């Protein structure tokens, strides 16, 4: 049961990473501000600028 719980938590963490939710949480923590549409827009403008300058694999 413990292994299953650990496995589920890792899978969820991977999904959150792929969804940039971990990155957004870090952004909120660094800037010490609550979640809001304005803050998310600020996060998107910084994060996407870097993310979509890199090649995607074939």
């Amino acid at each position, binding site marked *: 049961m413990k292994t299953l719980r650990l496995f589920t938590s890792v899978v969820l963490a991977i*999904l959150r990473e*792929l969804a940039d939710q*971990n990155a957004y949480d*870090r952004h909120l923590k660094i800037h010490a501000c609550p979640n809001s549409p304005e803050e*998310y827009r600020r996060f998107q403008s910084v994060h996407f600028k870097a993310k979509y300058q890199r090649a995607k694999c074939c």
Partner: protein
Amino acid sequence: MRHLISAGFGIIGAVVLAGIAINRGEPVNSMWLVVASVCIYIFAYRVYASWIAVTVMALDDNRATPAERLRNGHDYEPTNKWIVFGHHFAAIAGPGPLVGPTLAAQFGYLPGTLWIIIGAVLGGCVQDFVILFCSIRRDGKSLGQMAREEIGRVGGFTALVTVLLIMIILLAVVALVVVNALKGSPWGTFTIAATMPIAVFMGLYLRYFRPGKVLEISVIGFGLVIGSIFAGEWVAQSAVWAPWFTLSGVTLALCVIVYGFAASALPVWLLLAPRDYLSTFVKLGVVIMLGIGILFVQPQLQMPALTRFIDGTGPVFAGNVFPFCFITIACGAISGFHSLISSGTTPKMIARESHALPVGYGSMLLESFVAIMAIISACVLDPGVYFAVNSPAGVVGATAEAAVQTISAWGFPVTAAQMAALAKSVGEETLFYRTGGAPSLALGMAHIFSKSGGGERLLAFWYHFAIMFEALFILTIIDAGTRVGRFMLQDLMGHFYKPLGRTSWMPGVVGSSAAVVLAWGFFLYQGVIDPLGGINSLWPLFGIANQLLAIIALCLCTTVLVKMNGAKYIWIPLLPMAWLVTVTFTSALMKIFSAQPRIGFISAAEGLEKLAVQTDATRTLIFNNYLDAFLCGLFLVLVSTILIDSVRQWIGLLNGSRQPRSTETPFVQSTLTPEEI
């Protein structure tokens, strides 16, 4: 005990693989391929990769990684190794490991399977692992930056130009795969068209309604995409709507070109990013589903181990098994493009040096297994059906009767009635001449999924689900790739006229987006009007370019290992590199100079020039063939430049005339606690 278990896996893998390779004349179950590959992967990981990690690269967990030293909460962030593994695998897994093995199945299942397993273990995984290690030791620098510092300025510039050219060919060839899968298919076209408003809805939802709730909206988006597959069936059967979504290859190509331009110029959050999230989750989900499906169904392989087409007369693409099998399957065995990912985001997330082993080597093993699943999916189809779907009209004949007659005469019996019934069962008008690999892969996957649950009545749903899955993430590559190509072009053009280098200057954005779209759009159009199906010329060109990039990456690996250990371990990257040099240079020279018009670009152009009647279409084909020959030659010149530069450097380092200058960052003690990762 650990060594005994590893040896056991190695022996089982080798025996099963030898059994598959040697035994003939009896049906082979796909599980043999699964067991052989998994056992060899485990052996390679536990023995070869671990040895490289400990002895050759001396990974040191006491050494702080860039993620720790340069931690900024954005790109540099120490992350749990399994999260980095998932992130890295999602980044390297594209359509390549699915489409390449499907096309190479024309040689039979054996050549592709052997290349995927051996190529990955000795080549692809080593390249990804060593490049990741090099980047970790150099503050997470990119391949281009490292090539410039380690090999020289010429190497760095050549790598940049090569990547841009490869990107253009890659975008054209994957766009062609989508166009060939969707032409004349209102169901598929509607489903893919529907993903665009769905992505825009997701973008608006995230931006204005529920900021940051990406997983939540991805679940909603996935539900809507599944709904669009069901709606697609209704559209295909509607006398009013079906004609709107029944498009020719040329019209679809124009739609994809316009889409690529719009996606590159529109704000990322509106279309590209939500689509990227959706395609990443669908991709991972389908790969897992396919693995479970194969284990559950355990299908028999219908394709023989070797077909008559190893002699180079194959209808899917022309060329002998050597060297063409080895450039057709790139991403499943070794892909130069992976080196860009291994020196991109991943090294900035690695918390401990030892994590480079599962992330770099392990992710590529999993990618290789995806390629094995793709070859299984292609080979469970009846060979006659496989060739009927994948052969262009220019090779098998322009009517269904002519096509089945030609294919049956090759020894792969198939009838027009059988193809018509199959097309009807998947909700398509016809399945003939669907070159590019995607439709036959979708058929194989639908076959496996329907046997796992739902039976024959769900075949049409699964077929269009598989087409949607392939097209969804190929289109994501097109829009993201066009954007990246735009940035690279702006970077280059900024040297000549400063404002062009600014990514916020609108004329520069529009102009460079248009230039990149027109470049890959030109090759896409060329592929669509090609009577041999386009894949015959474009996929080898892409394969050659991709493998040449792998040569550049392996040159860098060799240079770094020579600087670290002298000649002692030089064979580790040199072995796959020597093979790739042989394979790519042979195939590139054949593609340029072969006297057979189906293989050689120049002989194809000369053959067309001799025709008595010269139409505009003929003149376009002649020009395209000369252009392809030029491009192939250019790739060879670019990579030869790096190769010669590197060999000079290795000789100098080994005979002492050149001093090894390390560009590694100095050792800093790690202070990360286990709780932090």
